[in-house]
């Protein structure tokens, strides 16, 4: 990243001069609002001052990031839609207090630093001073801005630990639930069928060891035939259990091929476009596969769609899967356990799921997981679904 020019730095300083005044006003508003919280006017004042403070702080984050050549993410916690809940969430966010402390700095010492930078340019004789000391002064001011406005390394680590603790708990729960489901599926399906099979065979054996079985070959044949159909049912049960653990087509063809296979089994036409130059790691593939399967199941069950599109891409170190249908919309993450499960499963890989589904459609679900692709493997091409 190239360093900003002196003209741009002076421009920043001028902006900081103006915004310093705004910061002073916001500080007064916020403190007055907090003091008046017992009457409704206080809440109103805060509802105005807090979002504006964030805007001004964001502007300074942007400038400081430019001066120092850093990436400074917005450190705020998510804000709910409901205005009162939003106010409470903002009040609970530690960053709001640091913003407030920062407004004091921005309208006092910080403001003076910006003022000096601008005056040195305006007062012609001080140009050499401006030329040589502008950069260090603006860098120092930006450092102090960020000391207030950006989360420190320790805070970032704390937040990360928090996220990891939550996702780990989810992963452990999900894994335990999966094992329970597996045990139940095996117990109710193949195990029960094998017991029935051994009973059929036992009966046939008994029949054949009795005197005069040759007079009733039809009875023995029927028992063997029963045994055979029970075996088929047991194999079929095992097949569906295996599909639930790890679909063979995913192992064979990777994410793109397996999604294509899912699309082909849909009642409505689904077009799959895959632009992946390799395969994501196996656990990510599996999580994304089941996520797409869940999305498509919802398309089939609730969307009343005529068609759907799936696009798989990889850029900026993230695999992105978009599932779009032309159905009735109104899908919601919290509506079913399925989508919530998908979100949890992706969260284990720092992946995200976003749903846009206005009433009346269309529904667009975007799944993103940060990961690298392994080297490509050639697969036979297949036509659109």
């Amino acid at each position, binding site marked *: 990243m190239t360093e900003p020019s002196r003209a741009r730095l002076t421009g920043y300083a001028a902006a900081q001069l103006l915004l310093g005044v705004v910061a002073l006003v916001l500080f007064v508003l916020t403190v007055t609002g907090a003091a008046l919280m017992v009457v409704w006017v206080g809440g109103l004042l805060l509802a105005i001052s807090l979002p504006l403070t964030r805007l001004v702080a964001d502007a300074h984050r942007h400038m400081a990031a430019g001066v120092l050549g850093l990436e400074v993410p917005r450190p705020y916690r998510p804000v709910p839609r409901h205005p009162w809940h939003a106010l409470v969430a903002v009040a609970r966010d530690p960053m709001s207090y640091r913003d407030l402390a920062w407004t004091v700095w921005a309208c006092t010492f910080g403001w003076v630093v910006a003022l000096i930078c601008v005056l040195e340019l305006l007062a012609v004789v001080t140009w050499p001073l401006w030329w040589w000391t502008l950069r260090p002064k603006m860098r120092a001011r930006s450092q102090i801005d960020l000391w207030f406005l950006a989360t420190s390394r320790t805070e970032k680590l704390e937040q990360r630990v928090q996220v990891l603790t939550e996702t780990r708990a989810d992963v452990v729960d999900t894994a335990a639930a999966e094992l329970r489901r597996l045990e139940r599926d095996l117990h109710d399906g193949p195990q029960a069928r094998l017991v029935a099979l051994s009973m059929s065979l036992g009966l046939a054996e008994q029949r054949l060891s009795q005197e005069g079985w040759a007079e009733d070959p039809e009875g023995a044949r029927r028992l063997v035939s029963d045994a*055979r159909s029970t075996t*088929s049912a047991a194999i079929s049960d095992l097949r569906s259990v*295996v599909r639930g653990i790890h679909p*063979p087509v995913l192992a064979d063809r990777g994410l793109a091929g397996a999604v294509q296979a899912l699309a082909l089994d*849909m*009642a*409505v036409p689904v077009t799959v476009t895959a632009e992946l130059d390799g395969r994501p790691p196996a656990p990510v593939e599996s999580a994304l596969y089941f996520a797409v399967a869940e999305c498509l199941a919802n398309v089939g069950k609730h969307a009343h769609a005529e068609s759907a599109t799936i696009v798989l891409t990889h850029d900026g170190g993230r695999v992105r899967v978009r599932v779009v249908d032309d159905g009735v919309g109104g899908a919601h993450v919290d509506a079913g356990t399925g989508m919530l499960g998908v979100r949890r499963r992706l969260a284990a890989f720092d992946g995200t799921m976003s749903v846009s589904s206005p009433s009346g459609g269309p529904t667009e679900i975007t799944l993103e997981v940060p990961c690298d692709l392994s080297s490509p493997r050639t697969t*036979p091409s*297949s036509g659109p679904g």
Partner: protein
Amino acid sequence: MRLVLAEDHALLRAGMIQLLEANGFTILHAAVDAPSLDVALRDPAAQAAVVDVRLPPSQTDEGLRAAIAVREARPGFPVMVISQYVEHLYARELLASGEGAVGYLLKDRVSDVAEFVDGVRRVAAGGTVLDPEVVATIMARRREEPLDRLTPREREVLALMAEGRSNAAIAARLVVTDKAVAKHINSIFAKLDLGTAEDDHRRVRAVLTWLRA
């Protein structure tokens, strides 16, 4: 008939050999992995192949790839592909070349010996035999042109044709006369614009149209 068999599982391989030989087939080569299958398929004496999808060394879809490859080298070479699971996607790839003489069945269909052996014979004779599970997923699809021109009854007949059933077997399944089945089939050929080619070939083309819709 001289067959190439590819099955990596020793028990299943022995069972298949026993079953096929008891029904009048000769097992020319019994391959255990993809490289030995490639060698076996190069034998000009081989008349058809029965191939498991999952084979060593990578235990993925080697058998399927070998089946597609051999049909590129020897167009129309009859291959019956068997697998522990079936995918519509794979059926489509197998049939992509546009020729018949392809079978794709779940492995456990082998337990119905008479039907399985009949399936292998049909494939060897140029027919198309698809597993009822694949057929069921295709039946569940709502697709437009040209299949919406078919009546529900004609769709049923087409599904049974895809499973490789003869006219007599279709008639028995749907409890109608052979003549009624023949009428439905002619109507399907007409609606799918399959012209007046040889009957076997038109059957394959009808199934292909259906699979691709």
